C-alpha cells in the first residue's frame, strides 16, 4: 500500500496519544506464578456473519514526565509508534539511545533536526538511561 499523507497520520497519532491518556481498563499485571485463566471461550469475540471484518484497536500508552526534550520527543516519536517502544527497553547508555534516535531520523525519516536528535536523546537518557560503559551496542534494524 502507499504511505498515507503525513498530516493525516499526525492527526491519527495525536488522537491515539490522546486516547492513550485514558488508561483503559484492559491492562492487568502478569500473574507471578504464571498459570492462569482457563476461560478461553468467553474471551473470544464472535465472528460476525458480515463479509466486512472490523476490529477496534486499543491504545494504552504511558504518559511521559515533563522535562527538557519532552515536547520534541512527543512530536517526533509518537507519530509512528507508541511510547511503549521506550518503556519496554532496558536502561540504555547515551551511545545506544543516540544510535536509536539517529536511526529514526536517517533510516525511517523522522522529521527532526540534528539539534532535536540531541534533545530527544537527552530526554530518553533522563527517563530510561544509564551511564555509558564504553561498550554499548548500537542498534540495528528490524529488531
Amino acid at each position, binding site marked *: 500500500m502507499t504511505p*498515507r499523507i503525513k498530516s493525516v497520520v499526525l492527526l491519527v497519532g495525536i488522537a491515539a496519544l490522546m486516547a492513550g491518556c485514558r488508561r483503559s481498563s484492559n491492562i492487568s499485571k*502478569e500473574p507471578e506464578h504464571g498459570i492462569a485463566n482457563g476461560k478461553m471461550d468467553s474471551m*473470544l469475540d464472535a465472528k460476525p456473519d458480515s463479509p466486512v*471484518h472490523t476490529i477496534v484497536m486499543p491504545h494504552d500508552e504511558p504518559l511521559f514526565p515533563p522535562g527538557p526534550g519532552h515536547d520534541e520527543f512527543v512530536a517526533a516519536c509518537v507519530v509512528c509508534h507508541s511510547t511503549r517502544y521506550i518503556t519496554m527497553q532496558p536502561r540504555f547508555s547515551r551511545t545506544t539511545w543516540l544510535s536509536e534516535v539517529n536511526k529514526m531520523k536517517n533510516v525511517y525519516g523522522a522529521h527532526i533536526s540534528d539539534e532535536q536528535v540531541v534533545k530527544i536523546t537527552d530526554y530518553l537518557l533522563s527517563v530510561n538511561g544509564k551511564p555509558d560503559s564504553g561498550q554499548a551496542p548500537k542498534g540495528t534494524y528490524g529488531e
Partner: protein
Amino acid sequence: MNRRRFFQLTGAAGAALMASPDRMTSVLGAPSSTRDLVRFPEKTEMILLTDRPPQLETPIHYFRQDLTPNEAFFVRWHLEGIPTSVDLRTFRLNVSGHVRQPLQLSVDELRSQFEPISIVAVNQCSGNSRSFFEPRVPGGQWKDGAVGNAKWTGVPVKSILDRAQVKAGAVDVSFNGLDAPPLPSVADFVKALSIDHARDGEVMIAYAMNDQALPMVNGFPLRLVVPGWYGTYWVKALSEITVLPNVFSNFWTDKAYRIPNAPNGTESPKDLAKDTVPINRFNVRSIFVRPDPDETLHPGMPNEMEGIAFDAGYGIRRVEVSTDGGSTWADARLDSEIGKYSWRRWRASWTPRNRGQYRLMARATNAIGETQSKEQWNRSGFMWNVIQQVDVKVG
C-alpha cells in the same frame, strides 16, 4: 485542538503523574519482574510489549498445549498502519510481475478453486528471547513467548504461481501485506523468497489457523506460511505476490533482519561481523513449560518436567535434561512427532532428594546433529538458542 494546546494538555498530565509517586512507578519505574497483560480484539490476555503497532507475547503456560490457541498466538507488526477492517467482497490477492497470467483472487476463490493443504508448523519471531542477550540490545524485549505452533490450512504458493504461469528467468517472489508505513520515508514491509523456495510446495498461503479464520492481528484474511523459517517471512494480511526476474531488494531485506554470516549467527560486541546474510531458517532450541520457575517442589516427591523442542524441519532426535546445572545429563522422553515443522514435546521424570536450589537445563539435538549453544550474541538479538536454565527451589 491545535498543537500548542495538545502539548499543554500532555504536559499537564505529565505533571500530574510526577505528583503521584505510585503512578510514576508504574509508568517509568525500575524494570519489574511482572509485565502488563492486555487484551486485544479476538485475543486473550497477552503480555504487552507495545500497543501501536502491537507486539504481544504469549504466556508460556499456553505451550503446554501442542497447538497454540489463535487467541493466544503472539503478535508482531512493524508499521503503524495495520489493517483493522477487511471487506471480503472486495479483498483480492493480486499476483503479478514476471508471469503470463496475472491473477486477482478472492478468499472464496482460494478456498474453492485450489486443492488445500494443512501443515502444523512453528512460527517464531526472529527476536524471540531477545531480552536474554548480554549486553542487552535494543528492540522488542521478548522473553520466550514470541513463538507458537499452529495447524495452517491454505493453498501452496506453487499452485498459485502455476496458474499465473511464471515466465522463464524468474528469480525471486516478493510478498506484501495490507499494512502501511506511517511516513512516506518508511519502507513498506515487503519480504521475498527465491523462486525455488516459493515453489517448494510447502510455502503456502493460509486462510485458516487451527481450522478457524485468522485473528485480524495475526494476519486476517491471508498469511504467508514459510515452514521452518523465521516469522519475518510470514507476511500478514497478504495481498500482493510479485514474481521478479531479478533479486529482490528493499530496506527490510538489505538492511534489516540480517545476521552475521557465522555459525549460529553469532558475533562479538567488540568485533561486529562485516559479512551478514538475511536471516533464514530456525536453529534448534527447547523451552521448558514445566515446572514453573516460581514453583516450589518438595523433596521425595516425583515431578514431571516438560518442554517443547523444534528446529527448521530436520526433526528433533534427542533432548537431554540436567537437574544439576549441567554436570550430568539424562535423555528426556520424546512424544511422538506431530509433523516435521511442528514442535515436539519432551518429558522427564525427576524426584529431587534434598531441599535446596536446583538448576534445570534442557538441550535439544536435531537430525543433522545441530544442538544448542552455551553462549551467543549478535547486535540485533536474533536466533536465541542458548541452553535454557530454570532455577527452582525444593523446600
